């Protein structure tokens, strides 16, 4: 061991910072571990790496514990070797600590639930991450995302113009889809009942979920708004362990809610966002939040059970299972509400085992999706989740977390499972019975037989059973993304001759279709559509097809 004179500045600062971050709960977890090993097999990393003891929760915990013992506890200060106390001196020591805290633990809290002593390893692993972040030793992804959240105000660096543009686009899509100009996405409307905040992933990659939520709010007649600032309810402070970032981000959201005098803050389906904003945010920001905060799962459940939203569950007949986000289930107690809602909007819900607080992490938690250097390790540890999913026999896995959507998609691809990932909002939007005034526009027949499908799965099934000459595909369709449906249609040998015409109001989304390694669509139409332009294009595509044949 080096003397403190040889200790690097960062190591010195980390040790000093540890002293400032110790509270009774953390110290309890640091001193109470009896090294009984009961938590070992609760960790998905251990299950995937049974021959590597460095994945054991207690081993990982010991990496901070040894520093604590060496510098802040008795026996460790006097007889360090006796209790395996040790210090950190070099950059390498810090890198090793980083590898454990960021790369070998997703902070899923499963071990916490299995420790007889009440050691909250996930909580103090977050402390370890915070110490490392404090001295600038963290994975690049964590540093980039944290910077974006500090500087741009959201963790994906979505610019305000782009965010507002996306909302406007979704509003147009909604109005055009339902032929109802009263369908709106209000922005910064004061004195609303509900202010709706999202995960920036929605604005960037999955705007359909914003439109689905907007549809639901409009149909139930909710007095709602989305904020122009403070709209990102996710919080990278949870993953980086940086309480200052955590507090600042949470405060941005709280301040906007108060500025607009909204009664309730509703958060879209995101486990870590919900946990950060509702549970940890008030602690980090040291602020007693004066308004109600709830997940959109609770809001939707309330709409359905109170009769404000009518649903037809037979529209979601494909077998589904539910994956509990760790932050939802093991940090916020949200296990029953999503299941209750699922049973109301799906006909075939199958539980996965283990479930609820015993469920396994999607393995993309704790910010793991932003740390590409640990991807092989993450995917290896995902085996346990893949087996769990496959055992359900379900074709769709539902999760109330955007992080889990990415984590699950990744492992489904890696382990080649025949499964799709979706969220409750998409299922609710599909099952929702539209009131008369918002029935979709009838497509003009003009001599052709027109069949319509309300979502991707329906479209796929209809295409296979009816073998139409042409299929028009709206990029803003409900449920799964249109580009995925497009690829599926293209890859199905039974649909080899099918002509596809894409319709969208966002030409820049062409790439989501044309980037796919399949034959491009035969037609492409921009919105707004007129009856004439639709017919002309449809005829053109079919004529070309006729000549070719």
């Amino acid at each position, binding site marked *: 061991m080096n003397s403190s004179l040889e200790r690097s500045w960062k190591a010195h600062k980390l040790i000093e910072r540890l002293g400032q971050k110790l509270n009774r709960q953390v110290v*309890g977890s640091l001193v*109470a571990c009896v090294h009984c090993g009961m938590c*070992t097999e609760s960790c998905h990393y251990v299950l995937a790496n049974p021959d590597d003891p460095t994945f054991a929760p207690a081993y990982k915990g010991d990496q901070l514990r040894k520093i604590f013992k060496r510098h802040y506890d008795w026996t460790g200060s006097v007889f360090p070797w006796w209790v395996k106390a040790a210090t950190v001196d070099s950059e390498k020591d810090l890198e090793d600590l980083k590898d454990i805290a960021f790369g070998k633990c997703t902070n899923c809290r499963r071990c916490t639930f299995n420790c007889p002593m009440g050691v909250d390893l996930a909580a103090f692993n977050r402390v370890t991450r915070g110490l490392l972040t404090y001295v600038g030793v963290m994975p690049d992804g964590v540093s980039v995302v944290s910077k974006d959240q500090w500087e741009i105000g959201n963790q994906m660096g979505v610019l305000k113009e782009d965010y507002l543009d996306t909302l406007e686009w979704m509003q147009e899509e909604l109005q055009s889809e339902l032929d109802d100009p009263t369908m709106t996405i209000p922005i910064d409307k004061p004195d609303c009942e509900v202010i709706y905040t999202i995960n920036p992933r929605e604005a960037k990659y999955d705007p359909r979920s914003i439109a689905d939520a907007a549809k639901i709010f409009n149909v139930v007649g909710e007095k709602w708004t989305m904020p122009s600032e403070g709209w990102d309810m996710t919080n990278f402070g949870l993953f980086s362990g940086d309480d200052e970032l955590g507090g600042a981000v949470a405060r941005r959201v709280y301040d906007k809610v108060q500025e607009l005098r909204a009664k309730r803050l509703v958060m879209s389906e995101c486990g870590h966002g919900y946990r950060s904003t509702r549970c940890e945010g008030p602690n980090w920001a040291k602020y007693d939040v004066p308004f109600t*905060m709830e997940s959109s799962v609770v809001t939707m459940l309330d709409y359905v059970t109170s009769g404000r939203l009518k649903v037809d569950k037979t529209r979601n007949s494909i077998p589904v299972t539910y994956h509990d986000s760790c932050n939802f289930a093991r940090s916020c107690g949200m296990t029953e509400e999503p299941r209750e809602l699922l049973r109301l909007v799906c006909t075939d819900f199958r539980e996965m085992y283990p479930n609820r*607080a015993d469920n396994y992490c999607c393995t993309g938690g704790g910010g793991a999706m932003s740390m590409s250097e640990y991807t092989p390790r993450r995917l290896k540890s995902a085996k346990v989740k893949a087996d769990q999913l496959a055992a359900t026999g379900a074709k769709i896995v539902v999760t109330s977390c955007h992080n889990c959507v990415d984590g699950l998609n990744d492992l489904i691809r890696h382990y080649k499972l025949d499964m799709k990932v979706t969220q409750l909002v998409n299922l609710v939007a599909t099952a929702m019975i539209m009131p008369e005034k918002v029935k979709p526009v009838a497509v003009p027949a003009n001599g052709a037989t027109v069949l319509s499908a309300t979502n991707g799965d329906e479209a796929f099934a209809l295409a296979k059973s009816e073998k139409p000459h042409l299929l028009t595909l709206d990029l803003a369709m409900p449920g799964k993304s249109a580009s995925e449906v497009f690829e599926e249609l293209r890859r199905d040998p039974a649909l080899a001759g099918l002509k596809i015409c894409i319709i969208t109001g966002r030409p820049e989304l062409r790439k989501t279709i044309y980037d796919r390694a399949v034959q491009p669509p035969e037609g492409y139409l921009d919105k707004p559509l007129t009856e004439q332009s639709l017919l002309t294009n449809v005829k053109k595509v079919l004529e070309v097809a006729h000549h070719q044949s």
Partner: protein
Amino acid sequence: MNEPSAHLHFASHRLQEVALLFMAVVYTIRLIWYFRFPAAQERQAPTGGGWSTPDKGILFSLLIIATPWEMESTRKRWFLWCQFVVFHLGVAASIALSFVIPYLPKLLTSTVVVGGLQLILGLACLVGVMRLVRRVGNMHMRAISSPDDYFSLALLTVWLGIAAATAPNNVTRGEGLQLTYFYVTAFFLMYVPFSKISHYLYYPFTRYYLGKSFGRRGLFPIRRGPEPQA
């Protein structure tokens, strides 16, 4: 029953009192140290309705060692949980024995009491051996074990074995066993505050804070779904 010698009297009375006093002082200092760390505040609005409240969470949390079905780790490895129970009953019995011999020796004239004590202490000693084997033989256990972990377990195992042999309190063949038992007990009492054996001092606090927070968050008591169909 013979009168104890002055040496045994010292070992079973004064030595124990000093060791206990020492332990109490160190524990007090330890608790003062612990309570000087500020408790983190939980500001989030309560969740969980009536099912889960901070009070219920605290109770659930504190009782978790007596409710093995509540944790997957004990549910799946019930044999380890049984070992835990036997081992801790043995420790309690040995501590009780160190008071019974000097203050209530008459109790040990009952063969039932002695037999019961020896059974518990003997089984606990056996569990101690099994735990040592597991700690040495299991790669994961070795990786997390410090010299203190091995020594504390070995010390307790030996102490339980000596206690089992001492329980009849028979000095007709000399006081060696009793003296050994009381010296080991005194050492044990003085060593405990510096070792991992002192975990029971923290147990109520870690579990209290975890239960309070998890009760407020709707996590404790844990809600479970149906078990899988066969």
